[in-house]
């Protein structure tokens, strides 16, 4: 019985310590310098932020799916209905799940940067799409009601 109490007490203390440590585990934006490649570019912010969203939203997706996500952001920047900058589009409320859950702050792979570059250079495999969603995760009627353009990997792209 005494042992049980001791175990219980230690358990409660450990639990409390773990809870206290929780805020320290929260996601932090990357603080490291931009890659050497990105640094030599004039438009570091666009490329860097775009690559971050590509990785945040399409990490595991085929290369084409990554370019497609970057294209959606660029198409929004060009559209009159969305903000005029990559940052404005990325951080628009409700726009990207990865900006809400911190996925965009995880390490950016060279493939994501390459995909972002291709989209900035004009490649658009989703031909003007302004929305994308994962059909398994989304019930939103507005998104489902948009005219669909293509399905790449797990995402449906729509105008």
């Amino acid at each position, binding site marked *: 019985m005494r042992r049980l109490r001791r175990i219980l007490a230690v358990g409660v203390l450990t639990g409390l310590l773990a809870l206290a440590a929780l805020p320290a585990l929260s996601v932090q934006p990357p603080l490291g310098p931009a890659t050497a490649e990105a640094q030599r570019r004039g438009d570091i912010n666009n490329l860097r932020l775009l690559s971050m969203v590509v990785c945040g939203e399409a990490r595991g997706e085929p290369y084409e799916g990554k370019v497609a996500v970057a294209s959606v952001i660029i198409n929004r920047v060009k559209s009159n209905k969305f903000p005029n900058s990559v940052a404005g589009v990325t951080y628009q409320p409700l726009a990207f799940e990865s900006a809400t859950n911190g996925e965009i702050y995880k390490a950016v792979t060279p493939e994501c940067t390459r995909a972002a570059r291709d989209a900035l250079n*004009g490649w658009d495999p989703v031909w003007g799409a302004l929305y994308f969603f994962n059909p398994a995760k989304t019930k939103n009627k507005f998104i489902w009601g948009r005219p669909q353009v293509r399905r790449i990997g797990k995402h449906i792209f729509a105008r």
Partner: protein
Amino acid sequence: MRRSWPILILGVALAGALIWGYTQNRQRTQLALRAENSYQQAFHRLEAMVVDLEDGLARALATQSPPLQRQLLTDLRVFSNGAVESIAGLPLLNVPMQRMDAFFNRVRDASDVYAFQLDHGQGLTPSQWSNLRELYGQAAILKNEMSALEPEVAHGNIRWTQAERVTHYSADGAAQTPLIQAVTRLDGKLQPPGEVGAENLPPPLQRPKGNLGPQVSEQTAISRVARFLDLPPQTAPQYERPIDGNFPLYVISAVKTNNVPVTLGVSQQGGHIIWMLDGRDVSRATLNKEQAVDRARQFLAKNDLHGFTERFYDEYGDAGAIALVSLVPERAGLTYFNEIINVRLARDNGEILGYDASQYWVNHMDRPAQTPRLTETEAAARISPNLRVSNVRLGVMDVFRGQEALVYKVRARLDGNEFDVFINALTGEEERVERVEVVGTPGQDAR
């Protein structure tokens, strides 16, 4: 004593948990309030933009001085942009607001077109004046509706964060908060959107200016793809589904013999390859710039696209092993600056990894022959005397919202910067000035 220490520990633990819970709750409330405040700020900014817009439109109607009209129209563009940016700061992404979107677009388009016209010495036509008047009517409705909504929002009777929760991507979107209802009601009071002008849209949404040819079948498109790829496909190319719109495409995918998937967009009219995307990573660079540009030109020639000259060159990816060659055609002494084709190739073996001819096919067409009224030297003399001219080229260029002009492209330098100044070859007017980007700056083709 031995018996009481666990109780003590549990007591401390309970007190700790209570303090922790309280702190967490307080932080959560503060965070929610901060989110609500930033939405409130966006809403009030939107309201201010609408007030300015209504006032600007009213004053634009009341003046006939071109410089004053010009100034008011420029302000209107700023206000409509500001309104769109403010709406973007609200959690309304998944709420349909077609009419409001259309209204701000119409204001922006009108201010662009009319200001350009005024700059070229033409006053507003009666129908343009009526259009402004109609826009004023819409602005007045919007202003009244917003000011009716303002006290409700300002006093926190209806909350933005509540709207955010129910319109979240995972919500089904059917939930209606008082705020969403109010916004939907407000949108319904405006005019339904008419036909949207497509001339200012990026290539996927633009109708090609020329005739691309007759409608082709999916089978024809597939056979064109097989011929286009420089590595033969491993298996038969797969037909996905067509993309409709102003520039309809077939989408065809295949796996190349090196196991890399490749996707292509083929125009339904004429069966032209519009784009190709292959994600192969390249880590070794052996081809130099000259060889890469040659390879790109040969590839175009193989596909019956002749007379292309380099417009821009860039290297990126690991060790800069991917080359981007941007080219434009030259026909009968004229360079077509808007008929751009981008070719992306591997610098290890010259394999074509990407192809984008969307701007070429949107702008390519037969044009009536034009003769310049200015000589090269006269054109070069028209640019700012502070610049040092390096070369001059005659060609065709988009000058305003899809309108083309015969221009001299005068490349010139000022301090460490290089510029292309486009001088109209008929009127001598300076149409446009562009900065020549240093190699390695992405996005300059994203126009």
